[in-house]
């Protein structure tokens, strides 16, 4: 006997197929079966009147800390947070302890994800062994085990010859090489943007140039190799310029932007609140403007949270020593709406595209659309519901979120993964 789930009367948004209309959606046996006016009845019916029905949201940049730092987050707690935030797929970063650097590690992440039974859990593998930037990791074995890309995230690959070798080698596998663009020689020990506040506080600053120098270098390497490259969490106006030029040259380069680089500036660091300590650092209003323009122009391919949970005890340190990171997975949608939909930079279909179709393409998975026969990953959103972010209600294990108390609009009502209601049942 087949299982059926019928979602009635929603505004169905499926950017990949150019659909934005009020209709019904039927999922049969975990797969999208039909989209349109559906008269027949089904075993399970959801009334989505006044709601958005979108492909399941995808976050290609999260840190779930497992293995190694399970006190901060686990794949179970992280994916519970993700599914409550409307995400049906997430990509874990490999900078765990130890890092994800062979097929066994990749399989471990997948197994933990399956056991959690919340979202699809993917992982990237490291580019270099131990993320040391010296020797290539076993990209082939990891790709065969299902790694959806490679990055030394947390570090950029400093040595240009090593990066070139990584891109060349990756050409065998049709995978994406993702980079945390930061030249450590420029960034020094920077703990915030190099600017007025780092000067007043006398704290080491990371210059925008640190990000731009590595991105510029990598673009030259991509010109040589033509391998798919993804710039993670770009944060500066200069980086936007570089992406714009690369796009003109039709290079296979994509990039992502986080909520915090769209909403917060270095001014937030003035009171040395470590919840604002993040890497790349919060920049300036001018950089935010440039990022938003880039999004309006279609230069940015994905929105990604860089969800980076940390214990309160770790964040209750001096700004100089506290770890980098903001835990924002659970309020991501509301933040994107505030940053992009409310000011009219994107409409809902535009936003959903950057959270579904395009990130799916970057990691090369057959997801992010509601096309017939695709996996039944669906998110139902109330676009008008306003709510206050309360970190104490997070399913994530961590509370290092500077948005506590913010009022945002756009609430996830139900998250359906493979035809099964995993949140909001």
């Amino acid at each position, binding site marked *: 006997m087949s299982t059926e789930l019928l979602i009635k009367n929603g505004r169905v948004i499926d950017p990949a197929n150019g659909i934005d209309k009020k209709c019904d959606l039927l999922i049969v046996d975990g797969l999208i079966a039909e989209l349109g006016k559906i008269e027949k009845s089904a075993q399970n019916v959801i009334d989505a009147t006044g709601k958005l029905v979108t492909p399941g949201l995808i976050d290609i940049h999260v840190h779930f800390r497992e293995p190694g730092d399970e006190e901060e987050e686990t794949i179970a707690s992280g994916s519970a947070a993700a599914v409550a935030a409307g995400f049906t797929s997430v990509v874990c970063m490999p900078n765990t302890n130890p890092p994800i650097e062979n097929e066994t590690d990749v399989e471990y992440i997948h197994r933990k994800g399956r056991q959690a039974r919340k979202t699809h859990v993917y992982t990237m593998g490291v580019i270099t062994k131990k993320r040391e930037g010296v020797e290539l990791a076993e990209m082939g074995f990891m790709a065969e085990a299902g790694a959806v890309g490679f990055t030394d995230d947390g570090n950029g690959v400093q040595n240009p010859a090593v990066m070139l070798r990584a891109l060349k080698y990756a050409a065998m596998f049709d995978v994406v090489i993702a980079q945390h663009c930061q030249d450590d020689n420029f960034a020094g020990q920077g703990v915030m943007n190099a*600017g007025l506040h780092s000067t007043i506080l006398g704290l080491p600053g990371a210059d925008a140039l640190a990000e731009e120098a590595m991105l510029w270098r990598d673009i030259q390497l991509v010109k040589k190799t033509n391998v798919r490259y993804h710039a993670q969490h770009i944060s500066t106006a200069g980086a936007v310029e570089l992406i714009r030029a690369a796009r003109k040259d039709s290079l296979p380069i994509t990039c992502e932007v986080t909520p915090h680089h769209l909403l917060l500036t270095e001014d937030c660091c003035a009171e*040395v609140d470590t919840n604002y300590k993040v890497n790349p650092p919060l920049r300036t209003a001018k950089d935010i403007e440039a990022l938003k323009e880039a999004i309006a122009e279609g230069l940015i391919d994905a929105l990604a949270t860089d969800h980076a949970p940390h214990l309160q005890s770790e964040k209750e340190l*001096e700004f100089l020593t506290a770890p980098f990171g903001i835990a924002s997975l659970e309020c991501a949608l509301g933040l994107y709406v505030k940053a992009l939909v409310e000011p009219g930079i994107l409409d809902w279909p535009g936003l959903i595209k950057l959270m579904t179709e395009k990130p799916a393409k970057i990691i090369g998975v057959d997801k992010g659309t509601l096309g017939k026969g695709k996996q039944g990953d669906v998110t139902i959103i109330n676009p008008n519901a306003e709510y206050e972010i309360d970190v104490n209600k997070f399913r994530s294990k961590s509370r290092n979120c500077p948005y506590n108390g913010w009022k945002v609009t756009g609430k996830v009502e139900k998250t359906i993964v493979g035809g099964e209601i995993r949140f909001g049942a």
Partner: protein
Amino acid sequence: MALRRKSKQFRWHRKHLLGLRELSAEEITYILDTAKGFEQISTRSVKKAPPLRGKVVVNLFFEDSTRTRNSFALAASRLSADIIEFTKKVSSVSKGETLLDTAKNLEAMGIDIVVIRHNAGGAPKFLSRNINACVVNAGDGFCEHPTQGLLDVYTIRKIKGSLEGLKIAIVGDIAHSRVARSCLWAMTKLGAEVIFVGPPTLMPTQVGRLPVSVSYSLDEVIEKVDVINMLRIQFERLGGNPFPSVREYSHYFGLTAERMKRAKPDILVMHPGPINRGLEIESEVADGANSVILEQVKNGMAVRMAVLFLVNQAAAQKN
């Protein structure tokens, strides 16, 4: 006179002294006026007054210090407080006891005032948000050293009468100097014009956004200024190679007797100490007639007594 009357009506309300940037001119003047009253305690035969009797001050020092630590200890003891000395090399990682736990443990012993020196800018501010005791910043990273800034303006005011309209050069490693920052805030708030002098590699990022002018030439500046504050080259903090050699640095930025010939005759020569004689300043100048370097140290006592007195009073009013 008008200023003095105004400052008498003024009520100090801060239980922490975290930096001078957040203080108003009125608040700074009030501390200086209060310090004036404490100055004579050090000249009495019985060098003791009772305002902090029964109070406990902890010197929580995560960085080496001789002058500031002793000055605070002596200031606290002259006000009859009990003093705990707590010296600890800061650990670079989050392992081990955190700053917050250390402070909370001390607080559990019943301390009233934490005098903190720390290598991380903003650490005193962070601490003040998380404990009940008063927090006095005795130097945090490259951010501020408020009592040094206060004793510098105290010394200038005492000799020149006022800072209004004075031109003051601060010379040396500005980027790594908390003294330069605290001095900048205090001096400009009190009406002086400040010039940072040093090589571009020792200027902080976006220095142009601070209320200061910048010069790379001590020779151009020396003739114009009423006060010159020579910073110590802090070899322990210099990252990389910001100037090619000590010899070349001294050539351009050392305060020599030769350069002093072109200075105003009544220029005040200051230095927060400890001095690298013959490097940023020649002995002849450091010990010369225009030098107020030891006067600064003496005034530091009065200023620190005033600060401890005021934060304690504000805490008492709040509780």
